């Protein structure tokens, strides 16, 4: 539980502080892993396997999401030649 909480917080901070899109993305994966740890831990504690099923779903969906996300980031990179999040400011106000 503590481990998962720590991972969660690291992930959240990572999203907010880092500039590189890829690293932000990795931070998000950290958050999802925190969720998985939580689910599995609860599952073991409660002697109830629904949590593990949920965790597997999360893993599967996260994989799909990663594929899509990387595709989007790639398209962005092709257009702008950068992965710096702060250079992404065409639209504001």
């Amino acid at each position, binding site marked *: 539980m503590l481990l998962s909480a720590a991972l969660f917080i690291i992930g959240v901070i990572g999203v907010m502080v880092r500039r590189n899109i890829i690293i932000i993305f990795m931070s998000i994966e950290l958050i999802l892993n925190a969720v998985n740890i939580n*689910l599995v831990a609860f599952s073991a504690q409660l002697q109830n396997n629904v949590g593990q099923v949920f965790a597997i779903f999360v893993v599967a969906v996260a994989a799909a999401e990663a594929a899509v996300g990387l595709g989007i980031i790639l398209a962005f990179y092709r257009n702008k030649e950068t992965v710096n999040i702060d250079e992404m400011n065409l639209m504001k106000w």
Partner: protein
Amino acid sequence: MPAGVSLRDFYYLLPELVLTGGALLVLIADVLLPRRSGHALAWITLLVLAATLASLGTFSGTHEVAHGLIAVDEFALFFKVVFLVSAAVTVLMSVRYLEIEGASPGEYYFLILCATLGMMILAGGIDLITIFIGLETMAVSFYILVGFIKPNQKSNEAAVKYFLLGAFSLGILLYGMSLLYGLSGTTNLRVMAPVFFGPETRHDPRLILAVMLVVAGVGFKIAAVPFHMWAPDVYEGAPTPVTAFLSVGSKAASFAMILRIFLEGLPAMVHDWQILFEALAIVTMTVGNLAALTQTNLKRMLAYSSIAHAGYILIGLVAGTPRGVSAMLIYLFIYTFMQLGAFTVIVLMRRRDVVGDELKDFSGLHFRHPYAAFAMLLFMLSLGGIPPTAGFMGKFWLFSAAIDAHYYWLAVIGVLNSAVSLYYYIRLVVFMYLKKDATGSEPSTTPALTVALAIAVVATIYIGIYPRVLFEIAEASARTLGVVGITAALP
């Protein structure tokens, strides 16, 4: 957990199955048909949506399917109709837009259908896992759709923003869900509800944390302030039909999810989330409307306006009464049409050389295309809540539900906000009717766009004048949700 899924379950999932099959069909047709056959694909997509709509009518009543993973009830049915209709209007809008942008229609329509499928699962989901799956099916489709116009930098940027923030909020939501599971030992909302009524779990700080994280996660999806920052950028950058679908379908689906989670799963925590949503509603309405005032890009303005509308709709949730919930359903239904209609007019303005979403593009529209201007006038009045349009009916019902539940200040703020909102809606009307400018773009219609516009206009007027049927259906739908339980939990 007993294994095996019976044939009966498949029967009740017929609409979802039809839709899935149809989506695959579109994908296959895309390969088989010669290139540049966007019209044919659009037709197939519309047929699939129609078939799904028809299959919704094959059964009635309230059922729990697949061991309590999905509920098939009137509440879900109501939302499914909203999704299918808005998907159909979106397809009608898209035909020409795709031609102009030169994007490949096959994948586009496939993704639209996938997003619709996700929404339908979301509306029926009464289990955290189902809700998660539905949410992701919808969200991932939208990530791609938002960035669908690959050479366009704005579209690209919108996709990256939407994806990163969406994934971030998903992480927060999931973390909350995992806590909910850990504290209740189940992922089924209906099993979960009574567990939390126990005195010791009710005041567990972890439970409060979980509720909070879930509120934040769903707040992102409906673009409630302060989780709204993505919306204006994404709405502006995304292809206009996608923006329309995103602001209508995704929002309605997220509200369905909110109602399921909080009214069915967490009635025990009503005092905690009610005050949260009250604050969210107030802030969301106010910030949305104030920010919309100074926008000059119409899509951006409508983005802020849709943020504000999410605030209005939250009023119904705060009221927490059956009347409040039915008011939410009514408002979502009405909102669907007026918002789609407004975006259809924007698509109408799109030409090869002009984007047509700036305010000045609309100046003097009345003189160039009176029907489009009149339709837009109608949608603006409806969004602003002026009778006899549908928007007035929806707002009236929401605010009276709030007063009925003794949330006087919420209603006052709501009315004040809709008074403020009229400025920017009417500003567009002023541009269309009271300015004569050669700079505006020349709208051009196609049959598909005309049909889309006609649907939206007719619905907006019809519901404004004769809302009775909608009201009755919405009440019946609201009743199938476990709202009775929550009113019992109230003091």
